[in-house]
Every structure is written in C-alpha cells, then in structure tokens.
C-alpha cells in the first residue's frame, strides 16, 4: 500500500502515512482516508472508497421503475424520501405525467421532514465527533418524533419507499397534519437548546472557526453542492433555482454564508432546519384534496431517450440520469450523488490542518458513505 501511495505522492523521510478508517467511528461508515502526516499536520489525504459498493446502478438495469425505488432508499439512507422522489420525478418527466397537487404537497412536506431528521442526526453525530456525547441523545430524541410521523404514514422509519412513479403508495394518515403541527411546536422550543449546548460552546467554536476553509472558486470547480457549498457562498439550492414539486409555492430563504469554514457549514445546516420548518408551516394546512396517485399503467415503459432530473437532498444535489431504450427496464441509470463530489474536496480542506481537525472537517461535510459507493 505504501508503494501504491508513494508512487502518487512524494513522501520524504519526515512524513509517515496512516490509515484513517475504514472502521474509524468518526468516518460515519466504511470510508478510508490514507493520510500523509508530518508530525501532526496533514500533508496529503486520499479517500479510498468502495467498501460498501453494492452495484445499485447495475442492479437497477434489471428492475422495473417501480422496483428501483426501494434501492434508492439505500443510497443516501438519511434522505431516503428525496432519493425516491428523484427517480419518480425523472420517470414522470419522461412519461410527461402531471401528478395531482396533493402528491406534490405531500412530497414536499416529507422532503422537508426528512431534511430536518437528517440534519438532526448530523447535528448529534457532529457533536459527538467534537467530544460532546450529550448532543447525541438530544438529537435522537427529537428525531424520534419525525420518525413516528414517517412510521404512521409511510410504514417505514428510515427506508420509506413511499413514492412510486405517478404518486404515492397510499394516502396520508389522518393524523399526519396534526402530528406535523405538534412537531413544529415542539421543535421550535427544542432548537434553541441545540444552540445552547453546542453552537455557543467554546470548545466547538475553537475547534471549528477558521478550520477547513473552502473557497467559492474551489466549491464551484469541484462541483460541491448542498449546505457545504452554500457555506462558501455558492448559491446552488435546486429547490430555489429549479423548483420541483411544490417548492415554487413556498417562500423560504436560501442560507448563504461567505466564510466557508467548518463553523459556517455547521451554521448553514442549523439555519436550514429553521427554514425547513417555515416551509412545513406554509404547506401543512394547505394540502389540497384529491387523488394520491396519477393514473398509471401497471407496466411503466419509458419512451426511448435520455432523461435527467435533479433534486436537493439534505447533502446537496442528487441527479438521476436515465437512458431508456423503450423497455420496462432502464438501459442505464446513473445517480449523481452529492457526497461523492463533496468528498473530493477533503484533501483541499484538510491539508495543512492537524489530524484532529480532519475529524471536524469530515464531520461538517455530513458524509453518508453508501451514497458515495452506491
């Protein structure tokens, strides 16, 4: 392995190479960083991926469009609903189907709930990376409320599989709206606690301010998206720029910072939770009546051609690219996953900082490894 690395990177006798992962708790999965260290300072960093590669894109070539949905759950499992929606929107675009308004509203609500749940889990694991064990319990406590909403309506807690091309699997539960209202009321009270515990904490601030700077130019040229890029000032919110579902009907702010360091990536996600709650408040009372699915043929066949649709997941921009030859299976399906592109900037951000900062930086990226490897 040393030979493999030293052929790429020049290693002098003052440097040494360590493996960071694949079983390190702060890599949040099976991701391996090969880190060149000089003393404690990171000189070079190479991510090695593929430990949890399941060949989802290849598997999709043998599955119908309805069956693909449950595999997309397993890519970015923390934003499972957005992944489902991306494939559904792409198929609907290809078939030129207009889904009922009710479906659009419910999808948007579930998107935002999923985004909050994802950011809550990120918050608590980031806190734990920084040495604050308490955060983990507080974050999971509040996330449980959202998971209950999912469980009652979708049937799943993490892997929802609630979307289907043309609409939803079944109608929303009668308690759905009331539970969301209760949650918003509850979480508005609890979110200031997050700030008290972690945001204002001196240890977090010392460890994250000015660490892992990502410039706007680098963010654009590396194709970084999501809160990571928005903390660097790159306006890349697909919800705002290319609205899908019911995002054109809601009023929300795109969170933008210009500093681009770890602390502002943290702040961007915290503010996104507040914005998501605003979106929920606007939509929850206005779900229009109607069907929960458009009329679809039992066998969905896409006309020959190439189709692309992107959505904003909680980590960035997910693109679904389908090439169809007119069959009921896709000829080729490609997922442009946000984490893969975000990961490419790790070397850029971590070089020159200490190895303890590497954990802060990778934590602030909110990496989900199955989404990288697919």
């Amino acid at each position, binding site marked *: 392995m040393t030979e493999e690395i030293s052929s790429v990177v020049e290693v002098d006798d003052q440097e040494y190479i360590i493996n960071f992962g694949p079983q390190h708790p702060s890599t949040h999965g099976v991701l391996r960083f090969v880190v060149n260290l000089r003393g404690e300072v990171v000189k070079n960093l190479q991510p090695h991926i593929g430990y949890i590669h399941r060949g989802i894109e290849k598997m999709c070539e043998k599955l119908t469009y309805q069956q693909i949905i449950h595999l997309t759950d397993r890519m970015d499992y923390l934003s499972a609903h957005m992944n489902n929606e991306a494939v559904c929107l792409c198929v609907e675009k290809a078939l030129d189907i207009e889904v009922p308004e009710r479906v659009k509203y419910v999808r948007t609500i579930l998107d935002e709930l999923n985004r909050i749940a994802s950011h809550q889990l990120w918050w608590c694991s980031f806190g734990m990376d920084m040495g604050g064990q308490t955060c983990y319990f507080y974050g999971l406590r509040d996330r449980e409320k959202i998971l209950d909403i999912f469980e009652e309506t979708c049937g799943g807690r993490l892997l929802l*599989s609630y979307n289907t091309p043309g609409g939803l699997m079944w109608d929303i539960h009668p308690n759905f709206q009331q539970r969301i209202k209760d949650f918003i009321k509850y979480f508005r009270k609890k979110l200031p606690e997050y700030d008290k515990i972690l945001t204002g*904490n001196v240890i977090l601030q010392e460890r994250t301010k000015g660490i892992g700077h990502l410039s706007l130019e680098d963010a654009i040229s590396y194709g970084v998206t999501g809160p990571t890029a928005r903390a660097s000032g790159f306006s890349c919110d697909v919800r705002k720029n290319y609205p899908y579902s019911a995002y054109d009907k809601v009023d929300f702010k795109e969170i933008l910072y210009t500093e681009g360091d770890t602390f502002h990536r943290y702040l961007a996600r915290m503010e996104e939770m507040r914005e998501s709650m605003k979106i929920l408040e606007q939509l929850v009372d206005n779900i229009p009546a109607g069907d929960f699915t458009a009329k679809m043929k039992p066998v969905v066949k896409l006309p020959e051609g190439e189709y692309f649709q992107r959505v904003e997941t909680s980590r960035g921009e997910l693109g679904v690219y389908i090439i169809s030859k007119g069959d009921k299976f896709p000829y080729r399906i490609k997922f442009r996953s946000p984490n893969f592109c975000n990961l490419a900037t790790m070397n850029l951000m971590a070089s020159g900082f200490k190895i303890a900062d590497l954990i802060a930086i990778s934590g602030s990226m909110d990496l989900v490894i199955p989404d990288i490897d697919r």
Partner: protein
Amino acid sequence: MKSIIEYISGIYRGLRSLLIGMSVTGKYFFSPRAIVTQQYPENRHGHGKRSKKQLVMFDRFKGEVVMPHDANNQHKCTGCGICEINCPNGTIEIISVSKVGEDGKKKRAIEKHIYRLGMCSFCALCVKTCPSKALEFSQEFEHAVFDRTKLVKVLNKPGSSLMKGVE
C-alpha cells in the same frame, strides 16, 4: 496588559458558554419527567411496572408480510403470481397446483406461498399490487432467530382454502 485582559475574558466567556450548556443538561438531569427512554424489552408488550409506555407499532408499520386467514381457515390468495413478479428480490415463490372445482372446471390454487423474510426489503410492492388484497403487513418486528431456515415461511396455513367469492 491588553493580552492579559483578553486571556481572562476568554476564560470567562468559555466558562460562561459551558455553564449555559450545562444549564440545559442540568434541567433534564433534575426533571425525570423529561426522560423519553422506553425500557426495551421489558415494556414491549405492556407488561412491567410502567405499562403506560408500552411499545405499540403503527398500523402501517411494515413488519413482515402475512396472509390473513378467516375463522374457516380461508384466505384470499388465488395464486396469480403478481406478487412474485413484482418482488424485486425474489422473496416470494408460489407453488401452485390446478384443482378441479365444483363446477368441473380446472382452477389454479396455491399449494405453498413461500415468503423468505431474510431476503425481503419491505418495499411493499407485493401488498400494494395484490389484486385480491390477500397479503398485508403485520406489525411484528422482532425477527431474530437462531437458525436462518426459520426465516423461510409458508404464508398459507396447512389445510387452508380459497375464500368464496374471490376470483
């Protein structure tokens, strides 16, 4: 002199931020009502002392696929195989036989509806696409067994037959 003031005020601000954080944790430490932990496995069926907090799954929770039978040991599965076609993992296998019905016509009926729980990914396509609503999800979630052959289940009960009126 200036650096000393900054140093001391830094210590003060740091301590203050820690105390603010600890005021939150302290509040929960001294208020047992705020504890949300559910004691598992003690309270999962509502036994134990605090049976108020029993663990009840929601009706739609996708635990495992079951085939409901009525009091006469009859089910609704006609053996059409749509669930088998729709399953993305090959979880379901239907072994059917053709029986001669009362009117003398040959009819397809299931002998075994095999469901491999270990392969199921709970996408709910079988339940959704079943034309006669023969399958549904149960709320059972404790699937751990010592032998994996126990995960292969036959959903129709022995001696069961097709419900009348279901085609």
